[in-house]
């Protein structure tokens, strides 16, 4: 094939390749996933395609499952006479990730309530204002009561359940690395003894596109 014919063929081939690319790429130029993605239902412990190095749902599920199983093996719970009462104290966030802290204790509580019914009971201290109002209504006779409303029946806490999330971050030209230590304690309010403690640790790393560095 002589050079003229070769040049002509090359040009025609280039045109044939470029024209379709232009037609398909033109309208969506520069737009990532222009058609979007249909909503997919996922398991809570599954890592989705949108992920960072921070605290995510799969971490929450893994950590709270572990804590719930661990609490039930504590001698003070397993061998308790009667049903121990637990009050949730807010989790402290000592990481660089802001998130809904209540969700950790909520999940531990729901796991224990659903998987170990009757082993422990949680006290609804966050509803105390509404409960005291109801008691006042009963005491004043404005509403009926099945028991003597003047008897103090609100239970005291046998244990406090609380936790702390602590983190360490490293960021270099190679990427960002985040380590988070999730620790939870069961505290005896009478003696301040930590009767149970367990932890989980998760480390993640990632590197963003060079266009953002």
């Amino acid at each position, binding site marked *: 094939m002589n050079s003229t014919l070769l040049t002509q063929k090359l*040009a025609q081939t280039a045109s044939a390749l470029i024209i379709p690319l*232009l037609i398909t790429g033109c309208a969506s130029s*520069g737009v990532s996933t222009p058609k979007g993605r249909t909503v997919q239902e996922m398991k809570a412990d599954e890592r989705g395609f949108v992920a960072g190095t921070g605290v995510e749902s799969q971490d929450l599920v893994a950590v709270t499952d572990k804590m719930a199983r661990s609490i039930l093996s504590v001698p003070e719970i397993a061998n308790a006479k009667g049903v121990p009462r637990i009050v949730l104290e807010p989790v402290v966030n000592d990481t660089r990730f802001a998130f809904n802290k209540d969700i950790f204790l909520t999940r531990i509580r729901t796991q224990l309530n659903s998987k170990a019914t009757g082993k422990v009971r949680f006290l609804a201290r966050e509803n105390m204002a509404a409960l005291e109002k109801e008691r006042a209504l009963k005491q004043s006779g404005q509403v009926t009561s099945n028991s003597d409303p003047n008897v103090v029946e609100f239970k005291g806490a046998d244990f406090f359940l609380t936790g702390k999330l602590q983190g360490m971050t490293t960021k270099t*030209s190679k990427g960002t690395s985040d380590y988070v230590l999730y620790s939870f304690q069961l505290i005896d309010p009478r003696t301040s003894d930590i009767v149970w403690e367990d932890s989980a640790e998760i480390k993640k790393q990632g590197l963003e596109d060079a*266009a*953002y560095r």
Partner: protein
Amino acid sequence: MSTDPNKPRAAWTTIASIALTGLLLWLGSGCASSSSARQTSWPRTGDPLVDGRTAISNAPPKDKVLWQCRTAAVAIRRGQVPEAKAILDDVLLSIESRFTGDRSARKSRSYFGDESKKRFIGEPYERVMAYFYRGIIYWMDGEPDNARACFRNAQVQDADSEKKEYASDYVLLDYLDGFATAKLAGDGSDALKRATNSAKLSVPPPYNPKANVLFFVEMGHGPTKFATGEYAEELRFKPGFSETKAVRIRIGNQLYTAEAYDDLSFQATSRGGRVMDHILANKAVFKSTTDVAGNVGLISGLVLAQNRSTQEVGLGLAAAGLLSKIVSAATTPEADTRAWDNLPQYLSFAALQLPPGQYTAQIEFADSPTSPIARTVRQATFTVNDPRKDIVVFVSDQLQ
């Protein structure tokens, strides 16, 4: 030697094919830009908050975060805190999702992809401010630990700079990290030490964990971006300015000062180069090289084409030169100069301990600490009555 009369015609056909290719490339780039132009044309009212909301809904996806940032700043300055909160939550989700494969970012790194086509998430100083504002709102909501998380995350955005000595050197971010820790009965001394070591404008005071009224004050106009270089491939920052040099807070007969601790223009200009700057520099070299090669090919090809004996070679060379020119024209090394352009110049802070009661504070923005006349005065009314939650007042000398 016999000459084929069809050879020149075939060669011109080749050149015509290449010219058509170039035309289509030019039309294609115009198609995308005209599409973008259509998307940026929405009615403006002149009110930055109203226009910002419209822009968030109508702007191209790549610019959504930019408009969200601008709008959130206006919202928080005007006291529309729930709106600012919702917007900033979305902004932070976008910033944190940058570890996910982003096609627009990948395309912006290619020779023919414009950097401004990538999804905007801001330079480090812009990302810092998104976390900073969100941290203030967390503290307003009685969540100092989540506020601290935002301030820490903001400081991480400033890590890994080219000029290592200026990495993670925001004074207020370290100071507030330690202050929140102290208020949560922890030890904030390390953070205070870092803040003190980084201080350039003012040295922050020791913590008073009993301080229950916090003033976050900002003033001036922050840095903006422009591009230099033969092909505008070098991103540069134009420092901002502030007519306000001093902030005084009057509560009753008491006078307090809110010292400025951080200078955003300094932060923007002291990080050094970006990784993307090297990519753009390579693109500029490629553009220049292919342009020169194209000129050489075209000129020498057309000269050779004048002679029958070298016509075929000449036309081939001209075709190659034309292709090189087309490739050069399609190469886009321009730096992205989209900017969060309503950021402040200075960040200030003051923490006061006040007994329960109702208060009206006059926040005076003055030209100098000794100037008796205030350029701008803002007023804030608040009630101190809940020992579990601090009062957080955010004030700016700008409302735009």
